[in-house]
């Protein structure tokens, strides 16, 4: 079960994920990112403070957006990942492909730098 909230802050779209992302709930994550991109946001922050677990399908969602976001010049930064979750990202080597920061302010800073 997952609960995904979106809120806007300083021109950035913040997607907060609360709960676990598995094969079935990854669809919701996919929808949320697609909506955010569709709404025309160029700065997307993903708040993972509430993310307890992510399966390979959930990682696949992030992975699938890498190319698209690059083409559209949209910048996505993840922050607040729990150690376990971060571990999943790093084992797969996805940490090298995504922008991951520890805190929200770091993430904001990074996204602002990138989108200049």
């Amino acid at each position, binding site marked *: 079960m997952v609960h995904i909230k979106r809120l806007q802050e300083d021109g950035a779209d913040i997607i907060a994920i609360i709960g676990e992302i598995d*094969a079935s709930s990854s669809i919701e994550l996919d929808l949320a990112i697609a909506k955010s991109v569709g709404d025309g946001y160029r700065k997307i922050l993903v708040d993972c403070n509430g993310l307890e677990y992510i399966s*390979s*399908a959930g*990682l*696949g*969602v992030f*992975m*699938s957006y*890498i*190319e698209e976001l*690059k083409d559209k010049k949209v910048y996505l930064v993840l922050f607040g990942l729990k150690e376990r979750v971060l571990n999943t990202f790093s*084992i*797969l*080597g*996805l940490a*090298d*492909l995504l922008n991951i920061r520890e805190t929200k302010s770091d993430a904001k800073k990074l996204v602002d730098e990138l989108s200049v």
Partner: protein
Amino acid sequence: MFKTKALTRLTSMGALIFWVVLAFSDITVLFADIKALPSDVPQWLPQVMLDLFIISLFYYYKFKIERDESLNFTDLLWKVFATGLIATVISLAVRLLLFLLGSTPLPTNILFIDLVYQINLGLFINFLLAAYTSWKRLILYQKSKWLIRAWLAFELLLFCILVYDSIHIVVSSTLSNTAILLVSALGLILSFNMRWVAYLNFKQKWTSLLLLLLSIFYLVYFLYSVTILSDTVSQQSTAFIDFQSHVFSIALLAFVITYITFSFLVVLFNLPTSSVFEQKLEEVVSFQRISQSIQTEQNEESVYNILLESSVSAVFADAAWLEMKATDSEQKLYTHKISAQESKDIRAHLEKNKIKGALDQSSDKTKNLSKHLGSLKNSRFRSLLAFPIKVKEETIGTLALLKELPEGFNKEMTRIVSAFANQAGISIENFRLMEEAFQNARYKEELKIAKTVQQSLLPTKLETNLDFEISAFSASADEVGGDYYDTLRINEHEVALIIADVSGKGTTAAFHMSQMKGIFHSLAQQGPSPKDFMVKANKALVYCLERGSFISATYFVINTQTKKVHYSRAGHCPVLYHQAAKNQSVFLKDKGTALGMVRSLDYSNFVENQEIDYQPGDVMVLYTDGITEAKNGKGEEFGGERLAAALQNSAQKSSKEIEENVIKHLYEFSGTEDINDDYTSMTVKFQ
């Protein structure tokens, strides 16, 4: 069947014989009376013969009419009519004979008149009994316990009267009067059972009226001729027993006349309403067609067409259309006697005037929109009724019915079409559920195939060497996963190993796994460095894997000459390596991104070549995340530490034993044999 035929023959023969005896005994009695001679034949004989004649005929018709299931209502009336016709024709023939005999002394002879009377009486009773049996079937058409009892009582009373008639013993006048009263009352009550009339259609009602009318005519004719004849005879002889004193015949006659009159009147007065009944019947049939259409036709379109047809005929609409949501934005239109353009105009007009109703798909109420049509110019329609069609509370379409007359729809029509629309909704819902069930079954079947494919992709035999031994274990959950491991000998000194985990489940996972196997077997034999292997594999897979799918893998080359393990990790779980010399187990956490993830960038920046010098006694455990992520009842994960500990305490044993130990620990931890992910491990023990 044969028995019934034999019985009809027997009873008809009996009736004929009894009648002949009746006629001649009566004539003899009469003759004796006129000539004042002592009669050889007892006076009671004609009476008894008459009773026997009646009973035989009663049974004859019981077998002929009552038991014949194939007869419908008009057939029954036809039987009565036909019997009456034959009887009348015979009677008229006798009359003609009398007329032809003219002035000869025979027609005035009392005995001859008696014979004529007996012929007429026989025919009359025959006709009455035929009618009686038919009436019985009509009355008992819709049986109830009470009705059957009433009829039995009635029949029993009639029989008592028959017996009483012939024995000539007056028990008590009150008793006989009561019996007569009771029989009349019962007969009258029974005569009110006219339910069969409702089931006749218009044409059948006309036929019935004609048949009943003619039957009434025959009845009157016979009553008249028998009365005249009996009067003539009884004037000349006292021994003659007039049929009018035969209470049974009178009761039977009264009953037949009552019922025939009632029937005639009821059918007559039901004539104007018969179209309503036919309409109702048609509605029921339409209803049934809608509900059954799914089973027979197997598609939604036929339900729509039947709904359109039935609704139009149920309310006599001049035109109709049915608009169904095909996809989210698309609508599908089915029309009846109206062009698509015309219906579009009407909808546009209603929309323009901001009229909310069932026509805009969001409404779920049946609406009469007739009054809004008045403002639409150039439209031939003056009445419009719209119904929503719902599946699982969701409106999936609308049915619109049109009439050229103003105020063309009444409440009753609205109710019927509403019921049709509901039933169509249910049919469509059932159809969709059935489709879903089929899909599910097919999916399960596919899964079974995928599982077989997956199993067959795993090697049955692993490479061995003097330097090392390998054991592998794989268990999969009900859903097919995509764990893969394999070995391949490159040359005399080198053996390639792979362990991989395909993201996703089901058939796609099995499919990707087979691609991985193909890549491994074709690339590995060329002996590339592990990193090269990964770069090439990534290149091949990027165009095969769909968006969001990837494969994590670790590829090893064990060189027994240099005593080295070369490997490269592409996003797979880190290798657990036990060094015998230090007696410690560590995870080799190197850099490496899974296959299929990096598409546009240079993948060679994301994977690395690694190497280990192995010593005898070293152990390498390769596994998939199913093992480290296996959970116990409390939701804790098995994790790397428990895995390392399991290896640590059995590292001195053979690869097989190490593996068994790890799996034992895993199952002990999860506390169940039911796994919800795939467990795959490959253990390499160096010697």
